């Protein structure tokens, strides 16, 4: 029922995203025909021929309707630049970005949860201060700088991980993980700092609640209190932000995938933007937007799992 109630707003969001994506890419200056032909071959006749072949001279609404109509059937057209089907390009690239993104979130949570809990448990102590200032420091460092430093340390100096490149999971799972590790770590650092700060704040509040005091009085161990009693109610902000941060991770992947020469959707998007490969840009942007909306929709549903007291009606207001 809840899913059905949310459906119209979801569809409206996606429709708006598709229109905006289409408009923004179509109104960008620069002629894709010129990019396709190259400056040396761009005679006015050749440009006109290519524009007509790609229907670039049709009015915008007509082009939008054609595009969205085909997109709904899974046909995003073919790239102007490479001639490969846009959907195929996205299907090939999405697992790469998803793997790096997921790995980044897992790494970030795996470090942030214990560290955030420790920080909350030791609130006000030197440990807390060190953790807090380290978190702020990491937040301030842009991911591309982190990436270069990681390459310097792990690839150039220590030689334990590859500096660039990608190995498919199906070709070699171990090498795949090695090639994903540095890009994921570059994305994870800032996320980790955000998660640590959030969890610390929420957990300090939780630890002051009556049921925690009651548990302490009953002689429950600190570890059990933290992990069994306090963590779940302290995870709302963390979960919300983890969902929202999916956008940051996708955005970060544009830079990180280019630096590490990884064939994900971020790099696909960047290359497509640079050469005005409109259909590719539109397809990728739409898929990213849909992924983002779906992830946050899922986060919404997860609230009820974390705290059954929360009604669906209330959580629907959160996104």
């Amino acid at each position: 029922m809840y899913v059905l109630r949310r459906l119209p707003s979801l569809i409206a969001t996606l429709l708006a995203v598709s229109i905006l994506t289409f408009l923004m890419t179509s109104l960008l200056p620069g002629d894709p025909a010129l990019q396709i032909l190259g400056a040396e071959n761009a005679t006015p006749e050749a440009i006109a021929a290519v524009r007509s072949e790609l229907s670039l001279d049709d009015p915008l609404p007509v082009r939008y309707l054609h595009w969205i109509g085909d997109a709904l059937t899974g046909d995003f057209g073919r790239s102007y630049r490479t001639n490969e089907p846009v959907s195929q390009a996205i299907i090939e690239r999405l697992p790469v970005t998803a793997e790096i993104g997921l790995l980044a979130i897992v790494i970030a949570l795996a470090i942030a949860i214990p560290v955030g809990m420790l920080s909350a448990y030791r609130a006000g102590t030197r440990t807390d201060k060190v953790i807090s200032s380290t978190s702020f420091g990491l937040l301030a460092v842009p991911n591309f700088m982190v990436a270069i430093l990681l390459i310097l340390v792990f690839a150039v100096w220590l030689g334990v991980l590859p500096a660039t490149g990608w190995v498919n999971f199906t070709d070699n799972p171990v090498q795949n993980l090695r090639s994903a590790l540095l890009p994921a770590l570059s994305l994870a650092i800032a996320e980790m700092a955000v998660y640590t700060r959030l969890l610390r704040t929420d957990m300090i509040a939780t630890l002051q609640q009556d049921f925690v005091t009651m548990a302490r009085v009953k002689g429950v161990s600190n570890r059990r209190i933290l992990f069994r009693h306090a963590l779940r109610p302290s995870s709302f902000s963390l979960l919300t932000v983890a969902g929202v941060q999916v956008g940051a991770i996708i955005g970060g992947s544009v830079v990180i995938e280019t630096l590490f020469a990884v064939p994900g959707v971020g790099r696909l998007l960047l290359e497509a933007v640079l050469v005005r490969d409109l259909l590719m840009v539109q397809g990728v942007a739409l898929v990213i937007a849909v992924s983002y909306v779906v992830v946050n929709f899922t986060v919404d549903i997860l609230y009820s799992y974390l705290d059954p007291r929360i009604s669906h009606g209330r959580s629907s207001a959160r996104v």
Partner: protein
Amino acid sequence: MAAVAAPDGISVGKWAHMRGHRRPTAGSWQRAAVAAGLVVLLLGTAACGGDGDGGGSTGAEDPQEGAVVEISEQGEPVDGGEIVVGLEAETSSWLPGRGTFNQPGVNVAYALYDPLMHRTEDGDVEPYLAESMEPNADLTEWTLTLRPGVRFHDDTPLDAQALKTIFDDYLTAPGANTAASLDEVTSLDVVDELTVVYRLVEANAAFPVLLISSPGWPFSPTAAAAAGEDAGARPVGTGPFRFVSWQRDSQLVVEKNEDYWQPGLPHLDRITFRPIPDEDTRLASLQSGDVDVMQSLRQSTVIRARDLDGIDNYEHLGSNSGGGTVNTSKPPFDDVRVRQALAHALDQEAIIEVLGGAGVTPPTTQFFSEDSPYWSAKVAEAYPAYDVEKAQELYDDYINDPDRSDGLPVGTQLSFTYSCPPDPSLNEVAQLVQSLYGALGAQVELEQVEQATWIQKMLARDYDTGCTRVGADSDPFIVFDAAFTEGPLNMTAFQSPEIDVQLDILRTTTDLAARKAAVEEIGLVVNENVPNTFSGGTLTVMAGREAVKNLAGWIFPDGTTGNGAASAQVMWGHVWLAG
């Protein structure tokens, strides 16, 4: 390590005049290079397009000016082994006519395909895959004869009919990006099994140059027809290596063509080409051993690669220079005094410094670099030197002229826009240019225009002045015919009857002395009228581990020495890996 060693079996020739380079000890320099890379990156020169020149020097001690080739002993060729090559960009498609082949793409193409013609170390164009190429008396027909017994990787024979099918169905098909450059060919006709004739609209002595690039890379027409829309993703050529696999933006793998038409080649078993767009991480990949050879077209990277230990550097200073373009169709730039004033006002040394090439990139004065046979001392002399007083004199003369071409009142200062693509180093250049022009009294507005838009604006002559690339490693006829005639590629709108006369000579003679004289005349006209200004040449490098040999030592089938690794492009069939 020898400063310059003759690769086995090739002439030192071209490389002999290149100076050796003192190499600092490794380790700390490696770190310094990457740390400097980080700074460069923070300044934002990483990745994406721009005009190439970027970043600053790493502080290497007294970097040498011009191309430096420092390579280890080459030894005897060894068969076997595989290497990984880091290229600066991915290529859209591997099918000639569809793919846009810049330097990275040409590298892969030279593994998969063979060019019908290629350039010797002296700059001549000679048959490579073709057996011969002969013009008729008036240079309107070029007869190309193929070698017998050459087959594509799918076993289709390379014959005259194959060339015709490629020409008719792909290279000149609607939408093909080679159609415009082949516009001058009215037809390609089959003479016999191995001979074709290219019939041209008019004489063109430079026609064979075209067959060095993608219109001259035969691919299997049967394989292309079978692959249909996906032909660009499954290339089948005659080259020293066969296509194995391609994952876009990740890697393209090729393996040895056991049936290659040149006996004894290729030496390597396998090559993996990896596009690594970021300069810093590509260099780090070479340092960490993830790639064995790396290409760079940015002088800041070229300088840093010089300081790596255990790396052979094959640098090349081509005829591509940074520079400025002026729209001569628009007042006040239609007046030569204004153009000369603007040229004299430019401090080229300062601009080169801003571009990170101080002491490394020599100043440029003409379309062809000093390494080219077409370079002329006379033209160099004629280029407007940095002379503020002269610039001011010419500038004042124009603005105080009652008949000034922009129709503004006497004494009104010039006001115009200087456009550049959004590259940080170009942005700095633009600011410098703005201050230099501003010193004359001109009000200069800076405009950042995306590369694609900028090209479009220049093609439409919808601009005042701005940064662009000047010159090309092509035949002078092709370069000047595009730049200074009626055609759509004349972005400065500058034309001159004197240039037309000289272009006719370039078009109708193959005699080098006559052609040099014609190029010199054109250079003099250009430097007097300054539709273009120059801001230093562009160094390129192929940097490889010392074990990777003969990156520049390729030879023609008849033993003539080729043009090395010019513009960071390698003939991979000739490369070997020392044991």
